[in-house]
């Protein structure tokens, strides 16, 4: 166990963990965050995605020690219930979820992608989301929501 300093959504935290512990457990267990989730633990589905240095990172396979002191953004860090981020608002407006478990994967992956590609084609967006799963298959609405947010964000 060792004390590790994390910066999550702008707030400093200290966690006392085995340094090889995947970041996901620090976020969801130690810090009690509800955005990043355990889906597979293998980096295959995207449920655990967070944004670090502008990249969508799979926190279930990222040792916590490797991101000590680096700014980490989770789904909670994008917006709030009162003031959702435009991407989050687009998902609400398009009713783009069923069970909602994968929303963290989809929104965080889309966020990192749109930040670099503000006006994506459908094909580019598809490519960006090729490693993300939604087992309710809310695909149609999710693409609509992301394109809606892209328009909103690039206005």
């Amino acid at each position, binding site marked *: *166990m060792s004390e590790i300093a994390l910066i999550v959504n702008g707030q400093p935290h200290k966690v006392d*963990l*085995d340094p090889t*512990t995947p970041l996901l*457990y620090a976020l*969801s*267990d130690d810090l*009690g*965050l*509800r955005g990043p*989730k*355990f*889906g*597979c*633990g*293998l980096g*295959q*589905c995207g*449920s655990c995605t967070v944004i670090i240095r502008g990249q969508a990172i799979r926190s279930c396979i990222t040792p916590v020690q490797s991101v000590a002191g680096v700014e980490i953004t989770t*789904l*909670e860090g*994008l*917006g*709030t*219930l*009162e*003031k*959702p981020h435009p991407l*989050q*608002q687009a*998902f*609400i407006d398009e*009713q783009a*979820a*069923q*069970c*909602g*478990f*994968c*929303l*963290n994967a*989809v*929104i965080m992956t889309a966020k990192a992608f749109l930040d670099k590609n503000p006006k994506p084609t459908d094909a580019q967006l*598809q*490519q*960006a*989301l*090729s*490693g*993300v*799963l*939604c*087992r*309710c*298959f*809310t*695909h*149609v*609405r999710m*693409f609509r929501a992301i394109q809606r947010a892209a328009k909103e964000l690039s206005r």
Partner: protein
Amino acid sequence: MTAPRAGGPQMSQDARDAFERSGLSRRSFLKTSGALTVGFCVWGTEETHTAFGQFATGLTPGSPPANQVDSWISIAADGSVTAYTGKQELGQGIVTAQAQLVAEELCVPLARVTVIAADTAFSPDQGYTSGSQSHPTNFNHAYLAQAAATARQALVRLAAPKLGVPPEQLTAREGAVFVTASPAKHVSYGELIGGQKFTLALDPAAPRKPYSEWTILGKPVPRLDMPALATGRFEFVHNVKVPGMLHGAVVRPPAVGATVSAVDESSVAGMPGLVKVVVKKDFVGVVAQKPWQAIQAANKLKVSWTAGSGLPKQNDHYNLMRKQSPSRDALSVDSGDIEHTLASAATVLKATYLHPFQMHGSMGSSCAVADVSNGKATIWSATQGNWMLRGSAAILLGMNPEDVRVIFTRGAGCYGHNGADTVSYDAALLSQAVGKPVRVQLSRKDEMAWENYGNAFVMDDRAGLDAQGNIIAWEHESWSAVYGNRPGANRPGNVITGLLAGFEPEPFRAQTPAPPPRSYNNNGNAIPSYVAGCVDGTCSGTGSIKSERVLTHTVVSPFWTGPLRSPARLQNTFAHECFMDEIAASAKADPVAYRLRHLTNPRVIGVVQAAAKAANWQARPSPKAQSRTGVVSGRGMSCVAYEGDNGYSAMVIEAEVDMNSGIVAVKRVVVAVDCGPISNPDGLRNQSEGGALQGISRALMEEVTWDDHKVTSVDWSSYHTLPLGFAVPQVEVVLVNQPTERATGAGELAITLSASALGNAIFDATGVRIREIPFTPARLKAAFAAAASKATA
């Protein structure tokens, strides 16, 4: 009036508060609302059990009686309404729809309604939330709908003496009762009953709000949970934390049928955070302070296992199912003349269809938290049946059901009986062993290797045609494999954890030969839509073919099985609807016109016509006349009367097939759905879109695989699913509203049709019939090659 806005920044503070209570901090709500609900735990009476007669598992002591308004509705002094229901949110939108229902029938603003779903401390036992039963159960003239209607009637009657006019001169709206002629005179619900019980039985005669007056129900009300989901504030069962909570991990056998020979606890001695190694017969798990510590200890723990029972060769298992003995045989219909009619037919067609084991494959592996201490147990679980879990967990733990509380807490979409029950047992056993709350989330592998899969099916179909090309006889015979199931209230051995802990699954009941059918029941859609469905002289089918026989054989599965979205209905419909297409092609008839020629039920006919019209269906026989090289295109139709009478749907799929690679690209899906009066059109669209695509994923790539000893499809690289990155087709949902009919199921309509509609589209495009799921490129290429060599032979 426009639809009330329950989500987004416009959400009222009331709605926000209600939402906070229902989704974000449920436990604190239950704590603060205890006074309101304390009188609820009235023991069940004979009447209760009669009222619950339709729930096979209904005799649950402690359930609030279903025939009492107070079991369903309470109104606080501030006028806020709490509705209690046994039909919980699985992601299908039913909690929002039930809030709409209560708001509508009770005449209160939607924002004032909070729905508490499936907590055994509060909610009536409504069996499982499954089988497309929530909409028909709670939205017709019974249970939640009738409780709300009875409550409104009672409030009007209570208001009459206060307002000094008879009830018929009063109007209920916006949470108050008004003198119709002088609305300045009114009294609020809070003033009338706030904080008190109704002490009133459900009145079957209490009038329901007529469809023409709906302002909340029937509208595309946004999901109440959406803002919290999108912003990462929603509490899934995975997020539940209770004081002093420890973390568990389980060690599952390395092979099917393997049992524990020895557990070497010294192999994990001194591991950081380790609290305990727990062994109960073949159940092995560890408890630690932190989740990662528990996972590491479970990985390191040295357990010796027996070799296991072995598995049949995957490439031969369909043949083995067909030959397997003993079997449980049943006849759904049997006109007694099928062989004679087939012998007299001008043409006889036959075909065999194969459907593999498939998995629920929830996005989040299953998770539960249990606190078994001081003689009581509380389980936070994403189970579909909280009262059932209460009973079966009590047996597992050796406790009285009265001492077990199950708090439904939402999980990742389950699509049926996924790992929610088994992980609840895992958490309960580990918690019992350490006397502290324990959270368990399964590994991806443990989820996928041991869940109760959707059944594999072998289906033989035969049909006879007369000289004019009309179908005069249809026979369907199937073999499906089962082992275990939902645990119900008393069979913990029906899932892996229960078996490992020493409980037996439900014994297999053999029955050969099948007795004659006693009554018409098409619950599993074993009976095709085109036959008359006659039993003892009464014909209840949806088609015209009089010579009919449907025989099913159930055999023992090597794997755990249980309901997977549209169980048996999807598999049978795959065979029926592809076979119908084969017959139409043989008769050189247009597949839509040919279906209509043999259908008699106006609602099936209605959805077929609606889907064909929306798809701009051009009448012609299949396959399409075109060159079979490069990328070819085609279209397919499929339809179903779900469970015989629990929803009606038809689908058209347009697809392209690359003849060289065997790759299928679905371009367009049109699906017409009729579930009676539509409670929430946007929710219905969402379910239909998702169902259609999930069905396409299952048809194109989903299949459980195994070797001689174990399941080998144990993660997302070995069990394939369409990712978000696939070229998503255009999906159009045609809503066929039937305001004067009964509410039926809706969530399993579209998915039932995808495989057959796609199979028919592939045939239309390529001229080759693929009769086995999944439609993988390799399978298609092999079929194209076989068809080509047959053509040149």
